[in-house]
């Protein structure tokens, strides 16, 4: 087995392990260690790390876990990620998790934070709000104070103070992690035949369960090894996939897109890994710096308010230009308010820019890939055959 295959296999093992063995082992290695789970789309993992804790990404149960209890908590018209997350909780798979953060993304995840408080009263549970006002002394001040409250909460949970120095060290590590993930995305965009979308996904996803130091090392090695790989370049079209920022698509869905003739050259999967677009400065007040980075240098996604009409959807138009993409595939989870409410506006921006797109829905446990493969395949063919380029 090659070095690259070994990394990919390790990432697949981590992905498939719904008992979070790696995180459990990390916790057991030293007494007093704590693990803090977080849901999509963004939390400042630096603060959890600075508290000496392991940030653990919780993204539902995927297509390998049977949801038995979780369905009893939700009506049929609610998306799947909260029910499988409840399943992870009530089945004891998260019994080692000391805290849970529920970011501001939609009403379902918001309400899940309250459910968690009722169902798991001994777990430190926080709804993590972010500003929708991006003015420094309004939204900025509010967010800095929210970060300070998160610091206080984690200090109480961990039984020790978090120093500015610890925060700076953690910010530096996550700056490095984000830079490496960006490098992986750039590498894939340049040579997509060398970086299959499913492998890239699993590599980034490994960062949801591994300590950042280990993940950084893993990415570096992956980049070195991937460069050496010789794979055939196919006559695929280049697409961006959008709408996957919360409930995760089945791995087979990602693979199916490539099998259908689409190279995925960008996506909005696992956004926390590259949410902040520039390095967070290490000088000055770390919380202020994190706040400023959120306000002025963070990803666009459907969970955020876009202050001007002119800017709406432009992040996607720019991504198409930057990545040399030929089209956009909107893959949205069923019943996902942010993705589905946003979609018509994003499509309108693409139409104005003459960028072709298609749309379909999925659930994390979707089993039938044939219709998706046919739709994506037809899209790829139509781009190849009929696009003006």
């Amino acid at each position, binding site marked *: 087995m090659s070095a690259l295959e070994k990394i990919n296999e390790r990432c697949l093992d981590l992905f498939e392990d719904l008992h979070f063995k790696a995180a459990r082992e990390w916790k057991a290695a030293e007494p007093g260690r704590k693990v803090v789970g977080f849901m999509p789309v963004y939390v400042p993992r630096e603060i959890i790390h600075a508290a000496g804790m392991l940030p653990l990404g919780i993204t539902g149960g995927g297509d390998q876990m049977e949801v038995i209890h979780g369905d*009893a*908590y*939700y*009506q049929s*018209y*609610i998306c799947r990620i*909260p029910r499988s997350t409840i399943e992870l909780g009530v089945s004891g798979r998260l019994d080692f998790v000391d805290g849970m953060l*529920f970011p*501001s993304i*939609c*009403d*379902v995840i*918001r*309400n*899940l*934070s*309250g*459910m968690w*408080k*009722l*169902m798991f009263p001994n777990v430190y549970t*926080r*709804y*993590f*709000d972010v*500003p*929708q*006002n991006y*003015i420094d*002394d*309004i*939204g900025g*001040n*509010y967010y800095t*104070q*929210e970060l300070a*409250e998160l610091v206080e909460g984690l200090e109480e949970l961990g039984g020790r103070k978090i120093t500015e120095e610890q925060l700076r060290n953690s910010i530096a590590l996550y700056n490095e992690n984000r830079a490496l993930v960006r490098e992986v995305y750039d590498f894939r965009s340049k040579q997509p035949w060398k970086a299959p979308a499913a492998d890239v996904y699993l590599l980034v996803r490994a960062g949801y369960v591994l300590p950042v130091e280990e993940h950084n090392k893993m990415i570096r090695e992956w980049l070195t090894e991937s460069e050496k790989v010789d794979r055939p370049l196919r006559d695929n079209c280049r697409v961006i996939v959008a709408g996957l920022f919360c409930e995760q698509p089945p791995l087979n869905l990602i693979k199916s897109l490539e099998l259908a003739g689409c190279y995925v050259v960008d996506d909005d999967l696992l956004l926390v890994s590259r949410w902040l677009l520039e390095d967070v400065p290490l000088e000055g007040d770390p919380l202020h710096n994190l706040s400023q980075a959120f306000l002025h240098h963070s990803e666009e996604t*459907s*969970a955020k*308010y*876009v*202050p001007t*009409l002119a800017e*709406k959807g432009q992040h996607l138009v720019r991504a198409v230009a930057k990545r040399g993409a030929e089209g956009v595939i909107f893959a*949205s989870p*069923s*019943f*996902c*308010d*942010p993705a*589905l*409410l*946003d*979609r*018509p*506006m994003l*499509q*309108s921006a693409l139409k104005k820019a003459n960028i072709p797109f298609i749309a379909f*829905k999925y659930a994390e446990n979707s089993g039938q890939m044939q219709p998706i493969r046919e739709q994506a395949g037809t899209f790829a063919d139509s781009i190849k055959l009929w696009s003006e380029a």
Partner: protein
Amino acid sequence: MTEITTPKGASPEVIKDDSMWKQKEMMAGHYDRITSAHENGLKVCNTFVPGNLNELIRCFGLVNNLPEVNAIQSGLRKKSGNFVLEAEKHGHSEDVCTYVKSDIGMMEKGNIAPNGKKFPDPDVLLLSYTGCFTFMKWFELLREQYDCETIMLHTPYEGDGKITKNMRDYMVKQLKDDVIPKLERISGVKFDIDLLRENLVKSAKAEEDLVWVLQSAKNKPSPIDAYFGGIYYIGPIFGAFRGTDDAIEYYKLLRAEVEARVKAGRGPVTPDGDMGKEKYRIVVEGPPNYTSFRDFWKMFYDEGAVVVASSYTKVGGVYDFGFRHDPTNPLESLADYCLGVYTNLNLPQRVDMLENYMNEYEADGLLINSIKSCNSFSAGQLLMLREIEKRTGKPGGFVESDLVDPRYFSPANIKNRLESYFQMIDQKRSGKTKGVAA
């Protein structure tokens, strides 16, 4: 093309009290004011019900237009079904909020107000982003449609079940430094804090009477239905009339009518006249269905079921635990109002409130009407039901419908479920079974 139709209302002749006529006049006048605003040199501000800033908007002479209320009107007038289809035809997902789709479909079909005249394009969209994620996207969609100025007022969620100083400071700062200066610029009217104080005094007066009316349901029999009837009662204060003399007058009139009913030992007024004997006292969680509103209500009063308290009637403001708009701290008071609306409360707070209603109003059970396209309300309701059953020992019931999409109102299913639920209450009273959700 597919036509969605819904059955006609239960009875052609509806019996109305004086307060109902007063409200009808107020609403008609309001729609005339909106549709003639531009002719009369007035500017229009579209905003939402939860967290609306009516007292502030009025300081700038703006006319307030509420898209949810328009969607409700479309639902009640059985027009929303085709509006929803129209929006879906234009690419809006079948999975999302039907208020949004009704509103967008209505625009596509000419944007006609209930008075038969065209709604004017808004001059400003004031997004009071309170308690519902969809609002944010809805306003982005409206902005795309109207290409007008948009002001965002972000209300933080009470994740930990309390209003912190940081949240209140953030709200006040947004009002002072962003919302008010923009409203001044758009309206051309300088902000007068004393006028705001005057409006807040009026709000508090009306709120006092509203609370008295809602709490009158503690009487046996209850003189009001606090859900179906309650939706009419909250109309003026949740809509365009908070902070007006009209609202004060309406609630004074309503209170006098309800006082008379209490004195006479009479039950609620229904569309078919006085309700018969009160057999079941129910607390309801969740919004109603508007496309078959009267049919839904009839399923209750035909069985002698009266709703004594509901969470939906707190969606535009929670007043029954003491909050009143406060003229001595005007901006802080607006902030607290926005932060405290029902859908901005966390789930444990919502459970506590329902438990309080179950006990204070001596209810026989909790019924949840779960709305397909409203995640803000619906996500978590099954846990809420279990919690209430556990805490009170009273049976819970669960029905499903939608706000304004008639495809999701299944009368036979709902009636059947309600009848079973009422039977379960009977059995529970006679001590035959343990409470299990219907």
